[in-house]
Each structure stands twice: as C-alpha cells, then as structure tokens.
C-alpha cells in the first residue's frame, strides 16, 4: 500500500501500539468478567494476502465462533473477536456456571452470552482507542456466527477487496494462563482509515 512507502517500520509500530492499547483494555475487561487472569501476546501487524488471514485461526474451513461488528465514526473498519469452540465452552462455563455447549449445540442463552462478551470487549477496545487517538469510534451492534473461518473473515475484507488482494490486520492473541490462543482480536481498519489514524497520532507520512 502507498501509505507505507515512507516510515513503514514506524507506522507498523504505531499500529502495533494501537492493538496493544485496545486489546489490553479488552483483556482487562475479559479478566474482570471471568474473574481470572487473562494475558495477551504482543499484537502482530501484517499486510496479509486474503488467503492467509484465515490461517491465523486454523484455516479457511476451521469452525470458529466469531463476533463481528463494524467500527463507525472517524476511522471506520471491521472488528472480529474470534474464539475456538473449546475456550468458548470454558468461558461460558465460568460465566453461566453450568456445562455449556454440549455437542457444540449452543442455546439461545449461550449465544447471547457470547455476543455480549464480544460486545463488552469490542467496546473496551474501541473506547480506549478513541481516547488514545481523539478520534470518534463507535461499534455497531455486534453479530455472532459459528461457522467456517474463511466464510466469516471474508466479510471483513470487502473494503480491501477493491484495492488489492491483501488486507492490513492488527491481530492480538488472548492467552488464559499458559494456554495458547484463547481468542483473537482482529482489527481491520478500512483502507481510508489509516491516514486518519496516523494523522491523529502525529505520524508523519
């Protein structure tokens, strides 16, 4: 992308920090919700071919639980909170206090609880990002799907689709204790939003 012609490394660092701040707050919110520690890995920021984005969560056909919402306001984009089925079950158990999602069948209550978790996490991610940048950013009502990762994520790539065959992804992995990859937070700002993000943060380009 043209935007990264100058100061590419610095810009990627800034975006990594964007992920850090947003997901850091979301991790804190999740930790409060579950009443146990939740860690996160250092965010990765990559311009990835469409094909490779689903690889991050187990491949195009891997069944995942995804909460998707649009970011509206000054720097629009797409946001996904993606959890695999096993961690989702644990989260629900912790939250609802009974054996959840047996046989991978989710009740209305369980889906609604997961959706609300996504809502809270996305809200804390975005509000910290809005504070940090001074930009207006608000989430739409979240929507949940349990389906193939490729089918879900392609929805977040449409804005990039008209520009080329890659998308810029800010990916933060959640860890619960020593366990790997509880979930992923994907922020995919629309191509037009990068300039606004960089301007707001005083990054020269």
């Amino acid at each position, binding site marked *: 992308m043209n935007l990264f012609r100058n100061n590419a490394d610095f810009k990627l660092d800034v975006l990594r920090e964007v992920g850090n701040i947003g997901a850091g707050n979301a991790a804190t919110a999740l930790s409060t919700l579950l009443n146990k520690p939740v860690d996160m890995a250092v965010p990765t920021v990559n311009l990835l071919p469409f094909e490779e984005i689903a690889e991050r969560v187990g491949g195009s056909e891997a069944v995942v639980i995804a909460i*998707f919402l*649009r970011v509206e306001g000054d720097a629009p984009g797409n946001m996904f909170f993606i959890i695999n089925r096993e961690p989702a079950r644990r989260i629900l158990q912790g939250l609802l206090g009974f054996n959840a999602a047996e046989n991978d069948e989710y009740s209305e209550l369980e889906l609604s609880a997961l959706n609300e978790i996504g809502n809270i996490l996305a809200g804390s991610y975005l509000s910290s990002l809005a504070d940090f940048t001074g930009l207006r950013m608000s989430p739409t009502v979240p929507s949940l799907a*349990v389906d*193939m990762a*490729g089918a879900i994520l*392609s929805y977040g790539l449409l804005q990039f689709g008209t520009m080329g065959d890659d998308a810029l992804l800010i990916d933060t992995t959640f860890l619960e204790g020593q366990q790997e990859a509880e979930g992923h937070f994907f922020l995919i700002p629309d191509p037009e939003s990068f300039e606004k993000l960089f301007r707001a943060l005083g990054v020269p380009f």
Partner: protein
Amino acid sequence: MTEGTLIKVGMADLNIAEGGAVLKTTGLGSCVGLTLFDPDLRIGGMAHIMLPSSDIAREGQLNIAKYADTAVPELVNRLRSRGAAIHRLIAKMAGGAQMFAFMGGADTMRIGPRNVEATKLELERFSIRLVSEDTGGNYGRTVELYSHTGIFLIRSVQHGVKEI
C-alpha cells in the same frame, strides 16, 4: 491431471480442470463459487468471486478473478481455449450468503445477494444455462466440482454435504 487430483481455488481466484481432477474452494461466505462444465469434453472451471463489479476496483493491477463481470468471461475463455463450447456449458453455483444480520443494511452488508445477481447476469449474457444453485442463507460453504462427472458438492457446518 490425473483422476482425483485436487486443484485448490483460492479467494478471488479461478482455475480449470479436466481428466477427473477436482476443483475445490473453501470457506465461501458472501463470495460466490461458480462452476462451468462441458459434459462432452468433461472439463470444468471454477471461480471464487468476491465482488460484483470491477467498476468499483481501485487496484492497480486488476485481479479479474475477483469480480463477477470479469471472472465469468475469463473462465469462459479459458474453457473455450481448451475446446469447450459455450452452448454446451452448464453452470452451477453456491455461496452468496449473508453471514451477519444487521439492522439497516448498508450496501456492503448485502454483498452476498449482489454477487449472486451479478454472476447470474453474466451467465445470461453468455446464454449459459444455470442448472442448479445453492445460494443465500447465512452460512459458509466449501464446494467441489468433479471434472469427470460435473457433480458439484457443497459442504457446510450446519447442513452437512449436499450434491447438486
């Protein structure tokens, strides 16, 4: 290409197969998996279409496999160059789902149905018969085309395997 060889078609990609090879594309959401098949030559093609029209393209180097209005002509040309005849071609397609339900419904949110409409329009333009489809809904699909038989398999998480 030998019997059973699997040819993967990526997102915004297209390819053709013959000699019993199988074309496969995974994780179709709002994208459309279109296949064309010439039963006489037993040759088939598949496109994983992401967007309805190249009019909205702002990319430098246009990826013609990505848009319905450019992918269909390209797929037809590729098949014709292998000897397929347009009047024999039959089309099957799947995908074009609306993965997430939203209030209001901005244009991008309706992208699945728009992809389906645009693909059908292109097929009409070439007078290619659409014999079956499994489009719409709110779920993802993985599809395969068997180039020997023209059988089109659709897999989904909620609905298992379906043959059209």
